[in-house]
């Protein structure tokens, strides 16, 4: 899969802003003026391109070593190249699975990051396609009591 990044065409005419971006105040100028550009935008931080980002849910324990716990939310970007090493949503025999994509001794392998689970080694007759690349794992912080740091 080759990611294609179209460039928007330039408009023939320049865009002209019809108004000044800041109000002209008559009183004491705000010391923050010129520095304010909005609060942190979490979506902007997490989502590279909203047109090809989807939210998935992980079910199962095969990827706990990669920080994916049962029930976690996954941000999945279809515009990123699924190169070996990436965590991907893959379609194997008509089922969606989340695993780490790798190539071992010339074979494509969907690696489970939990020793209790087997890797999926792809043979010629197995149909596999990559649906998208996982870019973020959203796990809720767990509530726990009685945890003491070790000295």
């Amino acid at each position, binding site marked *: *899969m*080759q*990611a*294609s990044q*179209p*460039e*928007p*065409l*330039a*408009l*023939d005419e320049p865009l002209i802003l019809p108004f000044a971006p800041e109000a002209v105040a008559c009183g004491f100028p705000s010391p923050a003026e010129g520095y304010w550009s909005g609060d942190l935008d979490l979506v902007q931080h997490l989502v590279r*391109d*909203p*047109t*090809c980002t*989807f*939210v*998935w*849910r*992980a*079910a*199962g*324990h*095969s*990827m706990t070593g990669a920080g*994916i716990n*049962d029930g976690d*939310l*996954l941000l999945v970007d*279809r*515009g990123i190249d699924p190169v070996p090493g990436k965590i991907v*949503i893959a*379609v194997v025999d*008509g*089922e*969606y*699975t*989340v*695993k780490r994509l790798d190539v071992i001794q010339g074979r494509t392998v969907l690696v489970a990051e939990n020793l209790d689970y087997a890797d999926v080694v792809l043979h010629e007759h197995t149909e596999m396609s990559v*649906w998208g690349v996982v870019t973020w794992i959203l796990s809720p912080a767990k509530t726990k009591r009685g945890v003491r740091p070790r000295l």
Partner: protein
Amino acid sequence: MTTLTPASDQIALVDCVSFYANAERVFDPTLHDRPTLVLSNNDGCVVAACPLVKELDPDIMGKPWFKIRGWCQAKGVEARSSNYELYGSLSARVATILGRFSAWQEVYSIDESWLKLRGAPEELESRGQEIRRTVLQLTGIPVRVAIGPTKTLAKVAALGIKKNPAFNGVLDLRRFSEEQLDRILDSLHVTDLWGVAGRNGKRLAALGIHTARELRDADAKWLRKRFSVVMERTILELRGQKCIGLETQPPAAKDQLIYSRSFSRKLTDPDEMHQVLSIYAQRVSARLRAQGSVAGVLSVWASTGWADEGTVPHSAHRAVPLAMPTDDPIALTKAASVILPDLFPTAGIRYARAGVVLTGLRASDGVQFLPVFQSEFEDRGVGKVLDEITRKLGAQAVGVGLGGMKTPPAWEMKRAMLSKRCTTHWDELPVAVA
């Protein structure tokens, strides 16, 4: 007789291939190589079918579900209820991506966009392939790119792409010589053309005009007199002269909003009708707030089915001028209930559909009242809170009055084979096995 000018702006029609069926496939790998069809509201009849289904039955479109159900099972055809949330979400993504390929875009329908492109035929065909690859990779939706000097000719190119798989989903009509184009237009009946209504086919035939080529070479001014300016435009467009522009301005806020539905079963109970109308009023008031308007008049109607022989035919309609233009769901829900005394005037009535219409709309920020005219709910922000909750948890999560029922009411639209609304509902996310 006409050559298509090689330079200048070209019009590309980008349309999604079997959009509903392919939208279903994005989140369901089991459908990938299976014939798939989509049913209308209430699982009534077939509204979309992928080519695999059409191979099995070319006349499948519009057939009622109850008649083909057994056939589908026997043939391994997968059926789905229409999942408009999913289609809308994917359609918006596709349209946004297409907009990156051109500064001029007209989103024409849920699965079609017009783009203006500039370049030689080979260049535009390779750009067309790039558009296909990009949209398919980013959204999973396959598209076709049909290019021509005018909208009408781009539609001709689209017919060519559908007929001939060798074009691989992209065709610039300018790649053909004059003679080839003549032959293509010879092979098309006038009613195959975009903008030529079926009923005009016979009238044109009476004048000796049968094919698209004959129409192109006919006297445009004379046909305008016999038909209309639309026919003249079609002729000029076939000659490569742009007459139908790109409507790139976003449509203005709607000046009326309608929420009307047919029920999944006929309603005979006044309480249920009350519930229906309060829910419809709330749904339409959510749309009103979404476009930032307030309404001056609420109309509400209900009627029996026109072909329903099991009912006394009845319909009722009421319009309520609102004391002050408002977007308040409580005020609108109350207003919708004015029709209730008019319903069920005699025994033996069963209603099939109802609707709530808001008119006299204007921008909400221009509204200024004296406090004495303000609705008692106005500044409590009830509408905003409702919208916030329904956006997060779905349209049935919370409601006012009888609209606030937890379980979906029995008359709610039947969508028995609805796939998950993967991109719009937190509790219906697609699941990957870890």
